[in-house]
């Protein structure tokens, strides 16, 4: 599982705007290996989230995938095959990502049922994933509804659901934006640990360069729907080639002037 490779090529998203077609994402190519974190950065509206949604074919209404393929180990797969089974996803806002009237147990079972897993063995897998995600008191938490849990717990639960699927890849779309700093740090620690222990390949969508420096191995910078620069994280920070990258790094440094990009806080 660890040696898998996810390749997105030529991904294009279009929408209709004032009677004309407009391209929101143009021919994006990305490659993600198991056991690495690839950060997809860019300003708001640059098409980062759209890229993730397009790869899994869950685009918002009014937009559509006009081209592009997703390959797993060299084999083209449909989005329906990829979702859940090969790519698990963590959404930005943990509070709205759970059905308010259903318990954690119901969500866990839904995730496993979607993978075609029978009733037997479910509990063991749920427990293992939740402990891995740092939710120790499994039976108590499984009985809770979303409103009875904190944002941090919910985000951990979302990570646990992703782990339950045993998908080799994880798309994390701004996983820490809606959390306070302490919880952010815990979630980032958790993701880093999972990368090492489970060999997860993580596509981390973010605009927070602090998070990037902390977690990412490689960085892809997006601007206006295109990838403008890709490279190892240190290269991108120290020798940004593209003006957009430079602006992002500069903006980060001007906000956190005392922190050097090599050892940022979170």
């Amino acid at each position: 599982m660890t040696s898998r490779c996810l390749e997105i090529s030529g991904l294009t998203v279009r929408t209709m705007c004032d009677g004309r077609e407009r391209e929101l994402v143009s021919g994006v190519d990305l490659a993600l290996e198991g056991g690495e974190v690839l950060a997809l950065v860019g300003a708001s509206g640059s098409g980062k989230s759209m890229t993730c949604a397009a790869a899994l074919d869950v685009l918002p209404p009014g937009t559509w995938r006009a081209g592009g393929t997703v390959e797993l180990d060299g084999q083209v797969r449909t989005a329906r095959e990829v979702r859940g089974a090969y790519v698990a996803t963590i959404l930005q806002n943990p509070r709205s990502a759970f059905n308010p009237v259903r318990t954690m147990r119901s969500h866990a079972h839904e995730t496993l049922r979607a993978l075609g897993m029978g009733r037997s063995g479910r509990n063991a897998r749920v427990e293992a994933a939740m402990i891995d995600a740092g939710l120790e008191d499994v039976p108590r938490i499984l009985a809770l509804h979303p409103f009875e849990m904190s944002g941090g717990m919910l985000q951990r639960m979302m990570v646990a659901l992703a782990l339950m699927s045993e998908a080799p890849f994880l798309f994390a779309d701004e996983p820490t934006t809606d959390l306070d700093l302490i919880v952010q740090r815990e979630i980032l620690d958790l993701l880093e640990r999972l990368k090492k222990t489970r060999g997860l390949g993580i596509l981390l969508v973010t605009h927070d360069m602090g998070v990037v420096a902390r977690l990412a191995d490689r960085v892809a910078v997006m601007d206006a729907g295109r990838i403008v620069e890709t490279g190892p994280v240190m290269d991108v920070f120290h020798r940004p080639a593209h003006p957009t990258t430079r602006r992002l790094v500069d903006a980060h440094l001007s906000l956190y002037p005392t922190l050097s990009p090599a050892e940022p806080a979170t």
Partner: protein
Amino acid sequence: MSDLALPEKPAAASGRRPWLSLTGRFALALAATIIAVAVFGPWLTPHDPNAMDLTARLDGPSAAHWLGTDHLGRDILSRLFVGARVSLGSVAVTLSLILALGIGIGGAAGFLGGRTDQVIMRCADVFLTFPTLVLALFMVGMLGTGLVNVVIAIALSHWAWYARIVRGIVLSLKHRDFILASRLAGTGRLRIFWTHLLPATMSQLVVLATLDIGHIMLHVSGLSFLGLGIAAPTAEWGVMLNDARQFVWTEPHLMIWPGLALFISVMAFNLLGDAIRDRLDPHLRMEHAH
């Protein structure tokens, strides 16, 4: 009422408030009784509802016949009991059919969206335009008379209301994050509809269905009264009303009993529906609490 009552008091008291209002509980008891009569009717009847006794025609109430007999000497109380079964049975079948159509069609419209939604909802609009009884009459005219056709006609003239509600709720929920999360986990569309969307429609559907029980009951009896539904010898309230029509000046009680049975049943289910709506609507609940 104490003068020292603190502002918290009413809120605390409302916590112990029963699930249904007094009227609601009364209606529930009444409706339960009617349903019990419908279910156990054949074992409760003092006489065979279809046994004629031409020597005892048009008798008033007596010890043997509590509500008297009709123009063929049949026991009215027995016929009312058995009639409850026919009325409620046909209402149950009709409502199941309406719910199936409404949920299926409305769910498909809301969930699939786009052109499918447009086509389905314009069809629904056509059904929503006509008064239901007129539409049902028209359909019985096309399908022919008989109970089965009446049930189909009533179901076809009512599904659009249910479809519209289901569609509205599905539309309001389908772009929520938890639906997206569910899709991202690989859950199929039908499963998402079943686990996340359908339960959300239930509180409104239960209210609408309860309120419609009386309405549909009147449709069934109304069509039977006109001779389009259930045929004459069967004990059914609409048929009984029609039978009694010719004696309305001489023996008015023949009309009063089935009329009263209809009135009480419709009222019971309407009050019950109102009470459930008040209970399930969070806004109204808030008003009660304060």
